[in-house]
């Protein structure tokens, strides 16, 4: 778990580049293996697509294909947040404090097995809220009720005052990431609260309390100890820190036992 004062935007452009290169090389190197097993090219491309999609979902880095996947996924029921979008909790009702606003119909969104989920996607485009003097300080939107307990769902709003709109949205998202400093809405969500909790006790697995993430995988050149001081010389590694991946050529650490 990160402590305060963390630079959230520590650059990990190298991880993006490395990962994208790995995917291209693994896919092209595997073409012959697929052929030898009598598996056709479309399955290889399917592997690539699913791999990219899962990487994007992991949120460890931003990838060049992220935007494409966003659109592809509309039909699969993903709830994601971009600029000027609102998010609903599974049972969330977000009402904006305004009168005379729009009210969208209640949606019964198909679950993962739903047939409708794959047919070209479901995209709601709310009408533009025109600058009407009477509603000057309100956006006048009432968000639809979405009966969805997993995955992502994307809403696009067009508005002339996106910032104001965002302020009015309360975020009650049970999973996934949302870049909003205001965490107060999470408090009311007991779903997944354990997962959001970074404490070791909940995540411990085995004697050493292994927790997913916060791990570095690499090679060692030297491990030296003088009394209780350990000096580690490492290289060619990947580290997951605070939910993002970083790659490095060399690493060194001095630690006291």
């Amino acid at each position: 778990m990160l402590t305060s004062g963390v630079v959230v935007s520590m650059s990990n452009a190298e991880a993006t580049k490395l990962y994208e290169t790995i995917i291209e090389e693994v896919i092209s190197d595997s073409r012959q293996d697929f052929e030898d097993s009598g598996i056709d090219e479309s399955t290889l491309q399917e592997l690539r697509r699913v791999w990219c999609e899962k990487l994007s979902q992991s949120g460890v880095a931003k990838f060049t294909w992220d935007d494409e996947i966003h659109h592809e996924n509309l039909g699969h029921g993903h709830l994601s947040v971009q600029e000027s979008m609102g998010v609903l909790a599974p049972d969330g009702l977000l009402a904006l404090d305004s009168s005379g606003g729009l009210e969208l119909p209640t949606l019964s969104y198909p679950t993962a097995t739903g047939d409708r989920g794959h047919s070209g996607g479901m995209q709601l485009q709310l009408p533009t809220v025109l600058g009407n003097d009477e509603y000057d300080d309100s956006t006048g939107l009432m968000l639809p009720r979405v009966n969805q307990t997993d995955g992502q769902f994307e809403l696009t709003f067009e508005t002339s005052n996106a910032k104001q709109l965002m302020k009015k949205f309360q975020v009650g998202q049970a999973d996934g990431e949302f870049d909003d400093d205001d965490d107060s809405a999470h408090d009311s969500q007991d779903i997944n609260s354990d997962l959001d909790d970074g404490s070791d006790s909940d995540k411990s697995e085995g004697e050493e309390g292994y927790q997913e993430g916060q791990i570095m995988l690499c090679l060692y050149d030297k491990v030296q100890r003088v009394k209780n001081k350990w000096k580690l010389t490492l290289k060619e590694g990947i580290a997951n820190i605070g939910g993002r991946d970083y790659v490095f050529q060399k690493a060194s650490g001095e630690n006291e036992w």
Partner: protein
Amino acid sequence: MSAPVYYEIYRRATIGTTLADALDSLITDQQIQPQLANKILNNFDRVISDLLKSELGIAKSKLTFKGDLHTYRFCDDVWTFIIKNVLIKLTDVSNSGDMLNDNELSVDRFKIVACNARKAGEL
């Protein structure tokens, strides 16, 4: 002379777990056999090990860390460390020279798994 052996350690990184997940779903859908999936994972081991080596130069950053060593273990030529109250500093040197990009992160618990560099890609 046998082909070089590559470590499987990077399969535990996100790029590896997501590949394994994708292969699993193809196996579940009976689109591929597990044997083919294994070959792909071996390809992955080779590709990522080679790409992380300095000559190819994608990963140039340097990382330093300082903290309290909580647990150390050496088994089968693999070091495992658990470090607490770690300050991690990443120096991104990819923009060669003009501006060194220093970033610091504090983590209260961090695990390191490291294989011997001398054996990588050899044997």
